[in-house]
């Protein structure tokens, strides 16, 4: 599949990000179509996104980032996209991420590439607070052991997926704090994934939705979910080898 014929969609889940999006969307430009999934925002996120030429999927109520990404993947599958690049709505992921991720996915023939801010040795770009870094480090080592490969940034919201995972995620995607669980899940189901180094920035505007007790509850919830996923049997309908038909399939 040559680069010219692959259909790529940029997926941005957004919750009350009208300010950040108005700065971020022009930076992304018009090279690839952009889908903004408005997760039940109460501000003008949808209007801002439409004004900058993005397709908008307006969810009637807030499902969380997991539900928003799943809805976006459903859209991508039905419209026949080959690859989806997911970026955060707050502009933490600069526009260069897109080409970095897509190059990595082509070069290494992976199903999923995550953008990691901790991959390079030196400290680069926005690294988040100390407390969160320790938590992320702990989670990264636990996840590396579970997935049996090196993972440095388990909570990164910037990744690229190919057609099989578009199909998979449109049917099954963890609901709360999905990024680490999703990695463990696809490792279990036999998919190939890797990381590539990217630099983050400060969020462009607005406030984070994970504050206060959030991180502690996050760890507890993710820990329990990882344990439970480990105990569950492999889902045969969505294993990598079961989804061979996806590569040649037209849109349903």
């Amino acid at each position, binding site marked *: 599949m040559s680069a010219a014929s692959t259909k790529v969609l940029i997926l941005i889940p957004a919750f009350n990000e009208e300010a950040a999006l108005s700065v971020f969307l022009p930076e992304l430009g018009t090279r690839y179509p952009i889908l903004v999934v408005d997760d039940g925002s109460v501000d003008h996120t949808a209007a801002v996104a439409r004004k900058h030429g993005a397709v908008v999927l307006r969810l*009637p*109520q807030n499902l969380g980032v997991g539900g928003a990404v799943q809805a976006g993947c459903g859209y991508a599958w039905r419209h026949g996209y080959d690859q989806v690049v997911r970026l955060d709505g707050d502009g933490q992921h600069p526009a260069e991420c897109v080409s970095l991720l897509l190059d990595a996915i082509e070069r290494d023939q992976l199903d999923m590439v995550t953008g990691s801010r901790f991959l390079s040795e030196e400290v680069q770009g926005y690294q988040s607070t100390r407390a969160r870094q320790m938590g992320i480090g702990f989670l990264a080592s636990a996840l590396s052991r579970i997935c049996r490969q090196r993972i440095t940034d388990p909570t990164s919201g910037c990744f690229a997926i190919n057609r099989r995972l578009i199909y998979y995620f449109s049917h099954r995607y963890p609901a*709360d704090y999905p990024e680490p669980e999703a990695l463990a899940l696809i490792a279990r189901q036999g998919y190939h994934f890797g990381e590539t180094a990217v630099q983050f920035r400060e969020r462009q505007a607005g406030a984070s939705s994970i504050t206060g007790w959030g991180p502690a509850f996050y760890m507890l*919830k993710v820990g*329990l*979910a990882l344990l*439970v996923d480990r*105990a*569950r049997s492999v889902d045969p309908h969505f294993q990598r080898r079961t989804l061979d038909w996806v590569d040649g399939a037209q849109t349903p």
Partner: protein
Amino acid sequence: MNLPDELLHFLHLLGHSLAARVLLGCLGATLMGLLGRRIALKNISPLPAIILALIALGALVFAFYPPVLNMMVRLDYSFRIRILWASLSLVVLLTTLESLRTSWLEERYALLWVGTSLVILFVAAFPQTIGLLRILSGMNYTSAVIALIFAFLVLVCFHFSIALSQHQNSNELLTREHALLERRVEELEELLKAATPQLPTSPHSASSDEAPAADT
């Protein structure tokens, strides 16, 4: 004689009858064999397996050594009650974990159940921990455990009430959105009909307003 005494008397007679013991032993062994085969084929889920294994084991042990029942009955009351609480909380714990594993139960609702059963298990293993309740209210051990279980059940029910409220709101929102979407489709159909009058309209056009099926 009352029922428990009659039961014990019956079991005492059973213990003395060789035929009954042999029969019980064979039944226990067959049950064990069937279970073993199913487990080897991985054709059985953990919770029924454990319960049936315990029954089979009990039958076998009684068949070989009937006085074990007398020993159990003569155990100290406080010890027996702790075993009872521990077994009950283990059953709850295993049922919850199994439901989680087969995706019957969502994680957010399972957390409270797992917490409850772990606390009861802990209190059964270390009865001194519930001493605070005894100091405060003079309850004995059993009453204190029941009070603890009651408190947790209230928490669980309250959690359900919250979840139900959220689902209620969600349902109402989706109903409103559904109506708005329906209106948009009708407007589109009218536009289409106006633009291409020769095409047949769909059977659910605005002119055929039936009351939607009401499922309370």
